[in-house]
């Protein structure tokens, strides 16, 4: 029995050590963001943010480029969420409520497209968007983002739609509601959690995306937040990096994402592994 207890304690210690290793970069980002560049220049690291200040954040925000990039990111994310969720919602109803010819091919196409890497398409996407003069615009990049996000969103919503029994709607129809009214009165409210989850998913994708943004948003004034953040590392090649400011900038970009992510994590992983929650 004693050996067993020793083993358990050993495993618990290992668990805590691993937890510390995984959380350390996140902690280090926040810790460094409060420390002055002078403190960070010291040879011995400062492990706790005592004596820190908000100066790095102020410096980062004082330069208007943050708000510019923030505005761009919000615009792109908003357009992506609205259209991706709307289109995916309609498609999800089609594939989970109807059996029709071509259904299987559509599902197959959705799954395959989801796997296409941006790296294999961005040259063509660049040429396409450039040819219609939409480089550096919200519309141009949103077209690519919506197309990139729709497949997984369809997949995610499909599970939710299938989870609401069609009999509920049919019962309402028996009570004299038209099919569309039955849908909006009965099914739609029950789908709200699914719509919220997939909106957050689409939001996170658009907010974090780097590759396509790098190719399509070539001007400084049209940068989204990830590109803006990368600018700090790029600048470090030519001048001394102010790591405190870089970490403050990273914290500003990461915190909203971390909060939103907590809501949808379960949905995303089960969706990827099992083809979304089956009803």
């Amino acid at each position, binding site marked *: 029995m004693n050996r067993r207890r020793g083993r358990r304690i050993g495993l618990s210690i290992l668990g805590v050590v691993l937890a510390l290793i995984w959380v350390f970069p996140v902690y280090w980002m926040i810790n460094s963001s409060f420390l002055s560049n002078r403190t960070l220049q010291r040879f011995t690291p400062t492990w706790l943010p005592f004596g820190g200040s908000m100066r790095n954040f102020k410096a980062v925000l004082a330069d208007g480029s943050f708000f510019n990039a923030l505005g761009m990111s919000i615009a792109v994310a908003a357009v992506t969420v609205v259209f991706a969720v709307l289109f995916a919602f309609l498609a999800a109803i089609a594939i989970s409520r109807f059996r029709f010819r071509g259904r299987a091919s559509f599902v197959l196409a959705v799954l395959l497209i989801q796997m296409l890497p941006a790296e294999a398409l961005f040259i063509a996407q660049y040429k396409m968007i450039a040819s219609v003069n939409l480089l550096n615009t919200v519309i141009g990049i949103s077209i690519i983002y919506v197309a990139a996000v729709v497949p997984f969103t369809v997949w995610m919503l499909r599970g939710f739609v299938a989870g609401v029994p069609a009999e509920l709607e049919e019962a309402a129809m028996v009570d004299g509601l038209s099919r569309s009214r039955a849908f909006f009165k009965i099914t739609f409210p029950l789908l709200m959690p699914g719509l919220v989850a997939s909106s957050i998913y689409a939001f996170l994708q658009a907010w974090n995306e780097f590759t396509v943004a790098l190719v399509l948003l070539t001007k400084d004034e049209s940068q989204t937040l990830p590109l803006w953040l990368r600018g700090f590392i790029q600048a470090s090649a030519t001048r001394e990096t102010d790591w405190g400011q870089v970490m403050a900038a990273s914290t500003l970009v*990461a915190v909203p994402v971390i909060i939103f992510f907590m809501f949808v994590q379960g949905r995303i992983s089960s969706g990827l592994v099992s083809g979304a929650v089956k009803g």
Partner: protein
Amino acid sequence: MSVATSRHTAATVTPRRKRRPVLPYWLLIPAIAILIVGTGYPTAWQLFNSFREYGLAQQFGKPAPWVWFDNYKELLGDSQFWAVVLRSLVFCGVTAAVTLIIGLGIALLMAAVGRTVRIILQISMLLAWAMPVVASMTVWTWLFDRRRGVINYVLDMIPGVDMYRFNWLAEPLTFFFVASVIVTWMSVPFVAFSLYAGLTQVPEEVLEATDLDGASRTQRLRLVILPIIRPVMSIVLLLQIIWDLRVFTQITILQDAGSSATEFDLLGTYIYKLGTGSQHFGTAAAASVIVLIITLIVSGGYVWRIMKEDSK
């Protein structure tokens, strides 16, 4: 129009959906349209132009002549391209394997420890998972910073190890080691959570029965637990391989901090430089098609598994 047809079904009450419905096709139109514009057309363009000469001159309006397989021949005859392909595959294979092993280890640990430790572990994993890629990259370049990075500082504390101002990003081998560490750190949480979810499906009675039968821990793991979570494991591994082939963001930012010479390239950055840097769109398109083929081969397995699930 669709409303009229639905009224009609409402009136007849019994859902007779056999009558070849039109509505689902209408519902699919927006999704299909955006997929054609955003991914279908670029894929077709890619294929088309991989068979044409499309360089700087064509940018300025010269017609692009058909060269058929010349772009592919040029690429496949180029030892640099092969080096990039090989490096990408090795990077992907090693990183995906290490990620799976560590992820499995952490999943087993989550199942073995008490509630408090498990929650601590889960919160920490979630935080790492939630980090935006670019933010993670800035933090990790800071951690690996040559002069004041914590990693050199800590390693230097170990007696007999001299890591003072060691430049991790100067040599391809250490550069890709750093990249692999970062990608593993980012991907382990997803693997750990998915496998842990799989482990919780293993019935308690089965485990008790193996205990009674006097199976050792390794036997129990090898003969009982692993076979049960094998389906989840193979899907997770496939996804990991697909994702580790697309590490453009991570490599680009590490190159920003280090060097962007070609021996630090993987497929993504290689194609990017070929296309936007030197404007060889035809060759870049051919390279993209090769990446597409590699991805389709790998993801074929994933899609097949999921389709099988869907038709059940």
